[in-house]
């Protein structure tokens, strides 16, 4: 067991972790931030995606100890203090970009990171970027549409609903 300290969603936190404790386990278990999900054990699904020092990171691919001193943002951290939604979150609701909601925190964190680097991505760029996030419910149609809308693009021409 070793002590690890980091800033999560603007708050400094610390805890005792084993060397093998994953960052996602620390976030869900120790910090009880259960919005970050675990959908696989091979770093393929993206349900666990968070931002570490501003970069999109799958929190199942990183040990908690490696996040020592880092700035971590989870889905809980991007939501306004008053519960208000970001443009990406709002677009997911407006365009029905989620069904069961399990992939959603990872999708939203991924999309948020994409739009920071590329404020007006094309459909193809969005699809390429989202390759690391699996959604089994939506068939991706409304996720891609929501991200285009969140970046201010006109999605009226894309097939209904």
């Amino acid at each position, binding site marked *: 067991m070793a002590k690890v300290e980091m800033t999560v969603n603007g708050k400094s936190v610390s805890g005792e972790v084993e060397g093998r404790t994953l960052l996602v386990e620390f976030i869900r278990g120790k910090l009880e931030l259960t919005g970050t999900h675990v959908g696989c054990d091979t770093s*393929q699904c993206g349900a666990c995606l968070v931002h570490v020092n501003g970069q999109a990171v799958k929190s199942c691919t990183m040990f908690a100890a490696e996040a020592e001193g880092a700035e971590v943002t989870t889905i809980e951290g991007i939501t306004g203090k008053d519960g208000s939604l970001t443009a990406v979150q709002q677009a997911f609701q407006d365009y029905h970009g989620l069904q*069961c*909601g*399990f992939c959603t925190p990872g999708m939203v964190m991924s999309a948020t990171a994409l739009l920071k680097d590329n404020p007006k991505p094309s459909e193809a760029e969005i699809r*390429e970027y989202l390759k690391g996030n699996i959604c*089994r419910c939506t068939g*991706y149609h409304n996720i891609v549409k929501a991200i285009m809308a969140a970046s201010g693009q006109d999605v009226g021409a894309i097939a209904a609903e």
Partner: protein
Amino acid sequence: MPKDHGIGASSKRREDVRFLTGTGNYTDDINARGQAYVHFLRSDVAHGRITNIDTTAASEMPGVVRIFTGADFEGIGSIPCGWQVTDRFGEVMHEPPHPVLAQGKVRHVGDPIAAIVADTLAEARDAAEAIELDIEELPAVVNMKDALKDDAPKVHDDLPGNLCYDWGFVEENREAVDKAIKEAAHVTTLELVNNRLIANPMEPRVALGEYNRANDESTLYTTSQNPHVIRLLMGAFVLGIPEHKLRVVAPDVGGGFGTKIFHYAEEAFCTFAARQLARPVKWTSTRSEAFMSDAHGRDHVTKIELALDKDNNFVALRTDTLANMGAYLSTFAPSVPTWLHGTLMAGNYKTPLIYVNVKAVFTNTVPVDAYRGAGRPEATYQLERVVDKAARELGVDPIALRRQNFITEFPYQTPVAVEYDTGDYPATMDKLEEIADIAGFAARRKESEAKGRLRGLGVNCYIEACGIAPSNLVGQLGARAGLYESATVRVNATGSISVMTGSHSHGQGHETAFPQVVAEMLGIPEDQIDIVHGDTARVPMGMGTYGSRSLAVGGSAMVRATEKIINKAKKIASHLMEASEADIELKDGQFTVAGTDKSVAWGDVTLAAYVPHNYPLEDIEPGLEETAFYDPSNFTYPSGAYACEVELDPETGRVTIERFSAADDFGNIINPMIVSGQVHGGIAQGVGQALMEGCVYDENGQLLSASYMDYAMPRADDVPFYSVDHSCVTPCTHNPLGVKGCGEAGAIGSPPAVINAVVDAMQSGGHDVTHIDMPASPSRVWAAMNG
């Protein structure tokens, strides 16, 4: 103008806010004070005899609470099967026991052998390594044809030949069908595989058992589509806990697609162990475990023959299917290749004679059960593939051949037992031709060819049967459950409403769509109505969500309960306004006396019900809460027509989906946005089945596709935007909403469209290929074209 509330409005989903902000409450997010963790030691061989299991050293490991093995479950019930099929000779199917933990033998990779309960998950896993286990490996049987041989290894020692049942449907038609096929002008024959799939909801399964010694109550939190069904199966058949001492909660559930219908050993284990240890016990599946413990789907091998007369009318259809059951019978497994498959073989066509034979086979693989569509995709795929092949053999347009044979008069009694109430197949085909721009295909093909690509168009129809019912009929067919649904509408004193429904939402948006219906009926805002679901302590009874039944069955129960509310509320209103009950009208949340300006508001009536000072106490009871059980008189029959356009790179065999269009008739629609989303998701799963997904075992029964590295899930760049339309509406005639169900259509209608398109592309390149099995991966396509 589209509506902005009530039935027909695309109301935004209220449940989204919690999912988007990370405040959903999935089972793994729930932790009980003092909980222990269980890790299952699972078989790494497909078939073997346990000759020694010694847990002494492992039990001494740090943090270990207790290690359970099969011996601890002697005298405990077997995991039950919920459907008993009777074979063509009148014999009931073979139903071998399915122990919670292996008893003496392991029968598939992943079969649980021991359960290690420890203070932490890491300690449980560490201790598993210290269990001494000897397994004498036995020859495994994986391939169904091999399994049926007399000298094949026996999955269950008392069942030579591994045959679960040999089912014929309709048995009386057998000879007539054989004769018609023999005498037909043309017979098209096709042998195909409906590939084995793994459902893969993104949330892996979780179970958390709790026990309260003070009142002898057990609680199970579980990732289920139907908590009441789990309460019944586990309580009554496995653990012997009566319903009033057992609560089952399925909170937010991260997708199901069928695989979370079934009662699993891990649920029974956690409930049992929590009682034994008087301590909460939690299990969270890893994805790797999910691949070898969640029930798989499909896995049929079929030969289908379609006979046509000289004018290209379908005259007879015969199919022979081997259906893989895996090593044990999962909850509804026997019903999938039989009643959910054979009854759909007429499809959209007036084929007068049909015979379906299905042999269900045990193998040393994970149990196979319902996966999105369950039997109906298997029926649709073979039928729509053989029709396409027939059109190509006869040199006629595949759309024209379909149109020529469409059922056009309703109600229509099929030769496979079911009666379609409504439909308009030419209309959905017209709509498809429009949205898919079939007329423009030739030009698009030229463009593709100019780039060195082949382009194919695949079209097909489908019919589905949703909301399987009525209970007395399905009972005769072998169901060991009723297939009604219940709803309780509780109106509070201030007029707000809780609807307790037995349907369960795991992505379908019931929390939004169900209130739209009640709001429409009462004329009050949707936000005054909340849906309660997924908890046996809060919802009196329920059969759950599967088979696209929630709105057609659960919604109908809710409508019936709301009608009772309206009747009683009108009585109260008539008293308040001193008018005759027959003159009371309810509109926009106001009760009025017809032909007068007298009115009372919804809230006045609900308040009077709970503060009955001025109230007809001699006629009716105070309070405003009603329950209804709804048992449908028939299935519902959604239908549609789908088109897929693919591009094929002849250099690599890689197929890409360029356009995908779906024209569906779901009857009346409550929330078009949600309905489209359901179709999108279904299409992606169907495209996944057709091009990418496949569960693969080697000949020793090792699961090769056991992670997302090896099992290809469709990703965002594997699919295009889809064009979906559900403006063709023939309302269901026998439920109060006129709705049909939309959850599975996309997964049913899309695989044949994709494969028809791939075959079309290959033939357009001059390749004499008449069929390719799913998944049509680049290597398979390339091999098919390059012989």
